[in-house]
């Protein structure tokens, strides 16, 4: 979980708004609330991305970006990222993902518009020519997608953490409660017994 630094003031203001629900329903505050939600939420891609993709295919923009020796094989949106695949003349397929949010701990291969690019290396590093073509296609698509094709993500699944983190968290919380218990008993133990 990470907070962008710009989110903290928004978080504080949002909490203040929550404390005054009557005010928060006024039109002005409702707009403010929506703006805050937009800032706080991660950005998710919408079906408008499909329209941009189709337009680029029809305009021949992908073909120009990829160059000779490769063809666009596939383009789809899955699990909150766009995936593009190209094929060489021998039918070998190479894939790149356009992620709207950087993936912590994973090497990025570039940026295009609002996206971070990740070349699929599960079957080994692609040849340099294929990598270049892949990134060119991804850059063409990433730069063509307007801001209007994004929307605040719904308050959905926040993902999962590791077992050791959960166990450590539980231990820490038990420690806090025990410390408060011992401290309180010692402080009050000197009272009117």
């Amino acid at each position, binding site marked *: 979980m990470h907070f962008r630094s710009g989110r903290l003031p928004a978080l504080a203001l949002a909490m203040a708004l929550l404390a005054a629900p009557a005010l928060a329903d006024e039109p002005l505050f409702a707009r403010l609330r929506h703006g805050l939600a937009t800032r706080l939420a991660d950005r998710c891609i919408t079906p408008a991305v499909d329209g941009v993709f189709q337009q680029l295919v029809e305009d021949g923009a992908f073909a120009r970006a990829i160059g000779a020796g490769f063809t666009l094989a596939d383009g789809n949106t899955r699990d909150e990222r766009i995936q593009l695949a190209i094929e060489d003349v021998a039918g070998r397929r190479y894939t790149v993902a356009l992620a709207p949010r950087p993936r912590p701990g994973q090497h990025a291969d570039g940026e295009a518009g609002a996206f971070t690019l990740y070349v699929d290396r599960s079957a080994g590093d692609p040849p340099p020519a294929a990598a270049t073509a892949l990134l060119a296609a991804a850059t063409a698509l990433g730069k063509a997608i307007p801001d209007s094709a994004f929307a605040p993500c719904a308050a959905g699944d926040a993902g999962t953490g590791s077992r050791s983190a959960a166990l450590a968290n539980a231990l820490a919380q038990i420690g806090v409660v025990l410390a*408060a218990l011992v401290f309180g008993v010692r*402080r009050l133990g000197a009272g009117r017994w």
Partner: protein
Amino acid sequence: MKWLACLAIFAAAFLANRRAGTAPLMWNDTFNDAVQVARCLDHGACSLVGVQTSIPGLYHAVAWLQLRTLLQWLGADAHGLLLFVQLLNALAATIAYFVATAVGGPIAGALAAAILVFGIDGLGVPIAGLNNLSSLLFLGAVLTLACTAVVMAPGAVAVVLAALVAAVTANVHLICALFGVSVVCVTLLAPRRRLLLAALGASAFAAAALAIAAPSWRHNLLAVLQRAPIPPSAEAVRWPPYPIVAWALFGVGAWVLAQLARARDRHAATGAVAVIAPPLAALLLAPHLGVRIDPKYLTPIRAACAVAAALPIGRIAHATLEVILPRTAFPLVARALPFAAALVIAWRASLGLAHPERVLTVDDLAGVAQVLRQQGWDDRQIARGFSTPARMTALTGLLQQQISAAPSAAAVAYDSALVLLLATDQLAAPLPPDWRVLRESAGTTVLLVLERSPLDWTRAAVCPVDGSACEPLTWDGFDPRGEGVNALPHMPRGGAWGGPLRLRVPILAAAPNRRGALFRPRGELCAGRIVAVDGVAADISADRRRVTFSPAGDAPAHVDVEWVVDSPDCPAVSYDGLPPFVVAGDAATVDRLERVLRRAEEAAAGGGAA
């Protein structure tokens, strides 16, 4: 002597808890939590957001799930978890006694323990249940202790510890986010360094809450920001008639009077009042904001209410006893009172004895699983053939039982298993061989009835009451353990749906001398009526609750049963997305069960009238 009294209160409260149940009750929350914990322990995929609250879109944080995960990682099973919770509950009574004694003397202490156990009911939270409410009594007591420590000796350490406990509690249950306000309140009410300590407490609370469960809080904040404004509630605004509200108002009122009178010990209840005030204010204000707050949300302030109410009563009792008792006897009586309270708690406290008598326990489900596995039933057969009131929850718990008994050589080809809770004195011995007693306790018998059903539920269909085409039920792939499974495919979702529901159930061909029957009980169930029987000779009772039919031949035969979900006969919460509970079987079996169930209904109606 003082620690001996603490020990006595603890032992008494623990005994009372154990008397309320030694096996966890069958509870949806318990089983859902178990799925999350298993996913965390077995696959390392630990949810960063807790379970959903009763307000759609809002989620609890993960502290309870993490605690359960830790205990299960250490080897605790469901019984171990319940034992742990019961120890915490006993500690809560002890802490209430300790705090009240420390600031108000032993008479107030004894009263606090007694009020907690006898004066405030369980607020609908089963004492032998396991969910995120289970630890709140204890955590609320610790917070009361921590806040009282802040008042008695204000300082950075005391404030930070109180704030951390509040944060942990808030991460167990969303309503406890209000304890952040409690920490600020108690620092503002402290005798000195108010603003500095308030800022410190607020910062520590927010930092700790976010550090423990940032995804949950961010999720909830977004959900609130994105949701439509809640219209004001149409319900009449009224003060909830719960005893805890009376105790809370009494405690807070006495504290206000003490402040106005500038009484010498006016700060004694400040810590408890700071814990009480925010959730109590929320409860009283919520209807104005269109939100209905369940009394169970006041669980974390139970100990604080007991302390706040016991202090003024204790003062009066103290003054009275001083007057009426000889000077030498008073100290003895004051010191003996906690032990007397402990004795009464140990012998008389009833912390929810009624629950195991109305609800199946995890042990009951384990017993059912053992028998059904011996019969050779697999998960698919259990999902289709097992039935009981609250069937979806029971099925979820039943299928979680890791029991793999070898099929018995003498297994009979049963295809229906009914589990009923019946009054023991209404079950005349001897029982038929197909009836198994799973538990007998406090006048209740948990009975498993194995049957060869005359009905074919696997080919049942949902038929609109307007006469349009029926849609067959689909059992393939149905697994109640799956996330978000709240109905059989093609049946309306359970929990909140309302409307007429008609099922058409084929009658199976049977031996010529075997007459089948169907009876639908009343009570805390979704009760319907038998509409019609086609294709076979049948006798429907005048109240349309029972039908006896002749064996079906080669021609198709079926019985139509109708329920009106979300009506007085079938509250919406009693419909769980599965065919509502009916007793179906051989006519002789149904006859006998019907007699028992009707007697129970009459007894309940008589009790209600009284």
